[in-house]
């Protein structure tokens, strides 16, 4: 019923003690409230005047108020605790994300990673807040109430005690039946839902094919099928709540009738009988509240599992092996016999690369040849299965080195633009850049036109849900980031222009070419015109380096692998 993982939380024991204490008092006020209420009614029933029983009414009122106050206090107390715990998780999650870098996203999927951080943590919070209160209500209040009923009349107490497991057993049995029914229908549910989504996503195509109108009946039919399936499942699913409801309500009715007979036969007085009658619903109330939120609890549990699984992912070790202040013209990187496989499929085979000073190295090959993977290994985003890596004669386990990642700038095919102002986006890597430097970077990256066009110039919001920028503009913004941060002497490019239209590509190339000077450059691409900017090329084919050398020489050789690649990419 209660998650063992909860006990690992910091400060949970103290918090729970307070909760137990408050719930205990609440239980007592429930008993007090019922007792004084009964006394008042019985007094009046006997025909006594209000004044005589006024003290009972006042005590009832006090108990009632204290009870309701405790409900509020418990909620506030646990909400405060849940906020703190979740805030803690959030920091841990973000730390883990940043420690693991983009591999996390690749593994989890973007959607998942975002959901864990947003809705996931929300569910966890609900779980802490709701579940703990309900669990402790259920484990304390009914038993205090029951003890008091035993004290008044043990026969009624025994009946209520025995009916409790019966209620739970029926709830569980029917719940399981509903579960299996729901599981059986799940495929159907999924299918129907997919068909709806399918139709919506395909709407532009339907429109183009002139079928959009005829499809609306299909949509209705799918939804109606969905309704029928859902109702079939609900009929079963609701029986478990029905059983709970049925047994608890009927128990109260049975208790009332039994009390009636006892009174009739003179075995009992009205006061104890009335007290039991008032207490009986209170005895079942925590159980009902608990079962009402059972599903919310399940969501919370799953979310907690996700969050904890993420936090417990092992960190990349040995990130501080490398000692390097700045990459210089005589610095050296050596990759020797690097192998990498993904899903047991070898992606890179025995790759050996040597880079020195401010060389400009192109990695070329068809899609799937392994050029991006190699770039990812150089960037330290992936770890090779084996092989040696050395920088300036220092042996390294991998390139996810803090000192290495400070040296380079990485431009992916589709750079991410933050939902922030254009200025903040450009200054992302160089927070302290001056206004003049920013203006220079904008000019040199060819962004002046965009700045003029934006309503608030540099201070306009861009990125998601702000103003969308085109692919070419995003590349230019990255270029400006690169220009502002002149500390980094290494540039990694992963197909930066592959998806741009050719004129934009041409313009961008003019802007980029001057930046390459006095940098070590790794440039992965299948747009071979970039070779005129490079002084070395590695030709990759199916994960292997099949040729390397100066582009000029290789292009001159009719039988070179580079020329073979040219031929193939040309579709000939």
């Amino acid at each position, binding site marked *: 019923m209660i998650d063992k993982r909860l006990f690992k939380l910091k400060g949970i024991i103290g918090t729970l003690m307070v909760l137990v204490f408050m719930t205990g008092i609440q239980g007592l006020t429930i008993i007090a409230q019922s007792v004084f209420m009964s006394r008042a009614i019985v007094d009046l029933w006997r025909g006594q005047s209000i004044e005589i029983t006024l003290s009972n009414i006042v005590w009832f009122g006090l108990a009632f108020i204290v009870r309701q106050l405790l409900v*509020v206090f418990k909620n506030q107390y646990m909400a405060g605790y849940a906020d703190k715990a979740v805030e803690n998780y959030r920091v841990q999650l973000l*730390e883990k994300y940043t420690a693991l870098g983009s591999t996390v996203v690749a593994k989890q999927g973007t959607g998942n990673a975002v959901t864990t951080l947003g809705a996931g943590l929300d569910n966890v919070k609900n779980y802490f807040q709701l579940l703990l209160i309900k669990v402790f209500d259920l484990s304390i209040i009914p038993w205090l109430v029951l003890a008091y009923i035993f004290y008044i009349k043990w026969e009624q107490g025994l009946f209520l005690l025995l009916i409790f497991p019966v209620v739970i057993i029926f709830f569980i049995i029917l719940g399981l039946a509903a579960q299996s029914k729901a599981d059986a229908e799940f495929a159907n549910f999924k299918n129907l839902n997919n068909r709806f989504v399918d139709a919506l996503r395909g709407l532009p195509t339907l429109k183009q094919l002139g079928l959009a109108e005829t499809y609306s009946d299909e949509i209705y039919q799918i939804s109606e099928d969905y309704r029928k399936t859902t109702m079939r499942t609900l009929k079963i699913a609701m029986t478990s709540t029905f059983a709970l409801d049925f047994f608890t309500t009927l128990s109260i009715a049975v208790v009332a009738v039994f009390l009636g007979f006892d009174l009739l036969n003179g075995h009992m007085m009205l006061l104890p009988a009335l007290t039991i009658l008032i207490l009986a619903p209170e005895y079942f109330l925590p159980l009902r509240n608990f079962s009402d939120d059972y599903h919310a609890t399940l969501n919370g549990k799953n979310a907690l599992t996700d969050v904890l699984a993420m936090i417990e992912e092992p960190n990349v070790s040995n990130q501080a092996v490398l000692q390097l202040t700045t990459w210089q013209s005589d610095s050296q990187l050596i990759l020797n016999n690097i192998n990498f496989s993904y899903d047991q499929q070898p992606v890179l085979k025995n790759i050996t690369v040597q880079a020195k000073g401010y060389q400009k190295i192109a990695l070329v090959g068809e899609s799937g040849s392994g050029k991006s993977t190699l770039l990812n290994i150089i960037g330290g985003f992936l770890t090779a299965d084996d092989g040696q890596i050395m920088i300036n004669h220092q042996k390294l386990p991998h390139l996810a080195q803090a000192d290495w990642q400070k040296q380079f700038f990485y431009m992916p095919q589709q750079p991410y633009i933050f939902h922030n102002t254009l200025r903040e986006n450009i200054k992302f890597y160089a927070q302290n850049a001056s206004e003049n430097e920013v203006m220079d970077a904008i000019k040199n990256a060819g962004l002046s036109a965009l700045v003029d066009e934006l309503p608030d110039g540099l201070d306009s919001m861009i990125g998601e849900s702000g103003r969308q920028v085109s692919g070419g503009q995003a590349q230019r913004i990255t270029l400006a980031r690169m220009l502002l941060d002149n500390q980094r002497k290494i540039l990694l490019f992963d197909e930066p222009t592959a998806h741009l239209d050719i004129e934009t590509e041409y313009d961008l190339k003019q802007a980029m070419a001057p930046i390459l000077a006095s940098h070590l450059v790794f440039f992965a691409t299948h747009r071979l015109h970039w070779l005129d900017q490079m002084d070395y090329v590695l030709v990759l084919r199916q994960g292997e380096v099949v040729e390397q050398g100066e582009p000029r020489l290789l292009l001159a050789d009719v039988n070179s692998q580079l020329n073979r690649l040219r031929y193939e990419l040309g579709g000939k």
Partner: protein
Amino acid sequence: MNKVRQLLRRDSWVVPFLKSQKSGLFWSIVLSFLTILAAGSLMFVSGYLISRAAQRPENVLMIYVPIVLTRGFGIARPVFRYAQRLVSHNWVLRFVSKSRRRLYESVASTASNIRSRLQTGEVLSLLADDLDRLQNLYLRTLFPLGAGMILYLFVSVGIGVVNWLFMLWWMMMLSVIMIVVPIVSFFANRTRVKKQKQLQSQLYTEATDAVLGLQDWVLSGRQQDLIAYQGQVMADLANTKRTSMKFGWWRDFWIQILVLILVVSTTIWAGTQFAESRMAVNFIAAFVLAIFPLVDSFLGVNQGVSEASFYEDSMTRLNELPVPEAEVTTPKTIKTPTIVLNNVTFKYGDKVIISQLDLVVKAGEKVAILGRSGSGKTTLLKLIAGDIVPESGHVTIGNESVQSLKQNLSKFIAVLDQQSYLFDTTILNNVRMGNIGATDDQVKAAITQAGLQPLIDSLPEKYHTKMQEAGARFSGGEQQRFALARILLQNAPIVILDEPTVGLDPKTEHQVLRQIFKVLQNRTIIWVTHHLTGIDEVNHAYFLSEGHFILSDTPEKLRTTSTHFQKLLAMDDFH
């Protein structure tokens, strides 16, 4: 207040549906009222029963009726509740079916032929969420509110029979609980809800920023900034949520205090009202005990109503959707599908996108349109496909204005773009969507023509292979070939190719393009492309910049006359 009233007056999603589905609504509300009534009656009769029994009547028969009633109400409550939940869910799901259809029709009526991506992706999922939210409006707000109102009347009448003065007191108290408090909490919560929603979406954007921009955060060494920055919004949101929960807790507390006042006053009233008769005193317990089960429904109404502002946005958004108009026009035919754009200007706001453009594409001619992003390529296609109407000038196909052909445009224009969608059904069915009346043989012939025969032969289920959602089981090149087969079947004289090969690797791109031009030999082709790959397949290439053509000629001539073209070609032809 006015805003809410206006929203309800103009509403065409919720209110009309309520009116058209009266019987389901009636039973949902009546059953939830009966549930509460049975719960209250159980305590009422039980209270009477044991009080009467305590007087020790000589005969069991004297309390026989209350005994039977106690059991009856004990069974009735769960049964009513079960029935109520089934009826109301069924009703709500029916609402969902109808609104989904309406939503689809509305969106379909405005979808454009060219790049209607934004419209479908984000907006649709947003609207689908809205529908889900409206379900809750019924289940959590409207039904409890309806039942609460009936209960209000019933209880008032019930007490009124005994004492009309006391009835006034009850009516006053219940008005406070069921009308005043909900209205106050609705408006008190409204701004908070608004803020909460805004923070929620901010949190989502920032989480996306954190995850998608993770590499930049790490490489720039700004991990600590990320953690600090993210914390702020989350803390704000937690605070807002807590204030609104706190509000709810205290509201419930004060309702309980009002209930306490009712209980105490009822006790005192019953004590005096029924004191004089030996039979009547048994009603004291009955009246007092019956109040408690009613409290739950009071709380439910209040919670539901204060949540109602959560649905406001959803209702507004749905109501802003256009109502599809059923236009019936006689299908037109055209003889020679020559496309003519005559002095066409199109503005978006103040910005001129297409300016005084002339273009003639003769039947069977193949033209390529190139230009930077933002130069107006997409707008030009939209004008040709009739998705948008020019500010001035005319767009005609075979001397008929495009707007007049819109109803059955798919007869004249086929579109192949990057997002041609493959549905989760068999290959045969997917391709047949090009022409619903096509025979199996015709469909198979089109598939062969698109160069897919070797692929089909390699599949165990051949033509009956399921595509999976969005054609996920096939590669990008294969998906485009399937879309091509569909277009072959569609048999429209004009084909718009809207960057159909973006995202394919160069080798596949070449192959697909070659196939496209081979099988579409006899059609008119307007091809928007971002590379010069395959440019020799066209008769004429147009370069668009700032809304007009800056360069246009046959590819052969451009090779010799234009240095711009030569420069671009040198980049693409480096292969």
